């Protein structure tokens, strides 16, 4: 696996973003979920085709200025300014889970900024009859969290996740603190019910959209794939039958093929 570069980007006075960057070619932004940013095989493989920018969510990864980004609109504007600082006028964006909620909002609020949009098990909508699970209640019980993330708990992807905790005590503390902070900073924008009004703005999206979901997603049920599809006419939906909330880990090849196929085939303008 290639090692991405950790780039510090000054977004404005008092705000510094941390972004992992790897690869050459057309730019592609990846927004991670509430579990925090890990440079995984999916990102690595994407970086063989694109110049991948994976920002750490503000407040994580050593970024500075989270108190300046207080609410949802601050976050949206922060991302546009980060795109400006990176020279990304209009860009392709992939968002996973919480990152999908942000990506969909960026494409809704200012449709000019997002050309192609990939939503992987994205948060942001709410169905009373099929509530999104409260992932934040699972942090104190890693086993329960684990069971909700993967379809096959014995798969190599699931096992890699389960065994990610370092053995040495200090490293373990760092690991748990980082995980807690990632969740805390995402919770700041998702707390309670992770529907912050996207459904009232999503009609503005002009980006070509591809929706990728794990059939067995136990956190954000697959019903939400169809709900996004309903709200984004013309979007493409791909359901990964053997996946839970991390299809890009559980069915890497298929998700990669879908992502690349979509991004490469998508027309330049709609």
């Amino acid at each position: 696996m290639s090692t991405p570069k950790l780039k510090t980007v000054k977004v404005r006075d008092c705000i510094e973003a941390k972004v992992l960057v790897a690869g050459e070619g057309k730019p592609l932004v990846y927004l991670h979920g509430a579990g925090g940013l890990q440079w995984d095989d999916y990102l690595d493989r994407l970086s063989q085709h694109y110049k991948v920018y994976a920002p750490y969510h503000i407040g994580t990864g050593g970024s500075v200025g989270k108190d300046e980004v207080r609410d949802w609109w601050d976050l949206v504007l922060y991302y546009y300014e980060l795109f400006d600082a990176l020279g990304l006028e209009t860009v392709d964006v992939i968002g996973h889970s919480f990152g999908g909620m942000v990506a969909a909002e960026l494409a809704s609020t200012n449709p000019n900024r997002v050309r192609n949009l990939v939503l992987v098990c994205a948060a942001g909508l709410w169905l009373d009859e099929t509530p999104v699970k409260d992932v934040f209640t699972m942090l104190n019980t890693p086993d329960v969290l684990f069971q909700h993330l993967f379809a096959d708990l014995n798969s190599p992807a699931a096992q890699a996740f389960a065994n990610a905790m370092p053995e040495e005590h200090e490293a373990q503390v760092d690991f748990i603190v980082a995980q807690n902070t990632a969740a805390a900073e995402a919770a700041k924008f998702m707390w309670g019910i992770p529907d912050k009004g996207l459904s009232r703005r999503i009609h503005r999206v002009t980006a070509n959209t591809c929706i990728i979901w794990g059939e067995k997603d136990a956190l954000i049920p697959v019903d939400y794939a169809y709900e996004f599809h309903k709200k984004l006419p013309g979007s493409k939906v791909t359901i990964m039958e053997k996946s839970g909330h991390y299809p890009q880990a559980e069915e890497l090849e298929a998700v990669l093929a879908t992502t690349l196929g979509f991004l490469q085939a998508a027309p330049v303008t709609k």
Partner: protein
Amino acid sequence: MKFVFMNLMSYRDLPEDFTEKHKSVYISIPNSLYDPEKGHEMYNDFIDQYELAIDLGFDGVGVNEHHANAYGMMPSPNIIAAALARKVRESEKTALIVLGNSLALYNPPIRVAEELAMLDNITGGRLIAGFPVGTSMDTNYAYGVNPAELRPRYYEAHDLVMKAWKEREVFHFNGKFNQHRYVNVWTRPYQDPHPPVWIPGGAASQETFDWVAENDYQYSYLSFYGHEFAKDKFDKFWKRRKELGLDMNPYKVGFVQMICISETDEKAKEEYEEHVNYFFNKSFHVSPEFTEAPGYRTEKSVRAGLQSQYGTESAGAKLRAGLSWEQMVEKGYVIAGSPESVVKQIRKAIKKLHVGHFIALLNHGSMPHELALKNIRLMGEEVIPHVRDIWGDEYEVQNWPKIEQTPAVQKA
């Protein structure tokens, strides 16, 4: 030395198989388990218990705030405080301590300034105002406050309430969370400019110590794990005060302790053990789902908690689990026994922690009303008189209302 009676008001009749059938006493407990007829009886018993404490001359009675649980039946502490206010007014010297309005839960927080001012007026200036942040269960889960906003909201609400009590003209308040064109707390507090302020908490963090010191408030360490578990927190508190160049006045802190008193040590075990066990095992049966939302504590506190065996309340729960009655007494989780032995244990705890405000929990879990009354009576009649003089005239009583020994308002 000041002694305060506090009643957690636990629901005392959870089913035998509660812990097997239900994951949590907080948040997810179905209220079908709540029997309103029993509730009616319990509320009135609990208020009777408070009234007995007032009659016995306790220095104070304290109420607190918890939501969506069967562990403390006071979602609104101010309602219980109001039910006690008149009796407090008529008592010789008892103060009324609202150990908690969790400030971030009130919208607008002006409501807290108003209600506490009303209580202060009714009692003729006998109120102590407590402002806890509140547990994660109460604030983030039961009341849905965003954990990232909880502390900023708390501090802002504090500033608003204090300003509302101090200002004598209508003012505007342009906060991050509260924007008010007109703030005007009519019925301002009886005490001028406001009641003494206590900050109850369970985290014992240096940030809190510093903030309390800066404002000259009293810090109350509220934990159910007793004086031994509290020792390192109090050591930290006093060490920090020294570093800040402040005095060692014990009235700068309060401390909560579970107490069980009977005729003899053996009888105390016989009478109280099952109820203390009910408290720890049932009233405090909190699912790990809800113990702490991410963001409830700062990153720094989370790290410190992981590095210390005694860092968090859940550490307390782990240390206590499986202990026998004798071990719980020995390790200070409960102070129990005959009045003589309770006097000894209390004296030791007070000296060890260097504490001036002692908050006595005397009604635990499933205790029947009569036993609670007995415990309160023994505390008031046979224990407090022997420990009241611990600090003598060595220190000035602080963070306490100036109570005239005759009632502020004479009865017609």
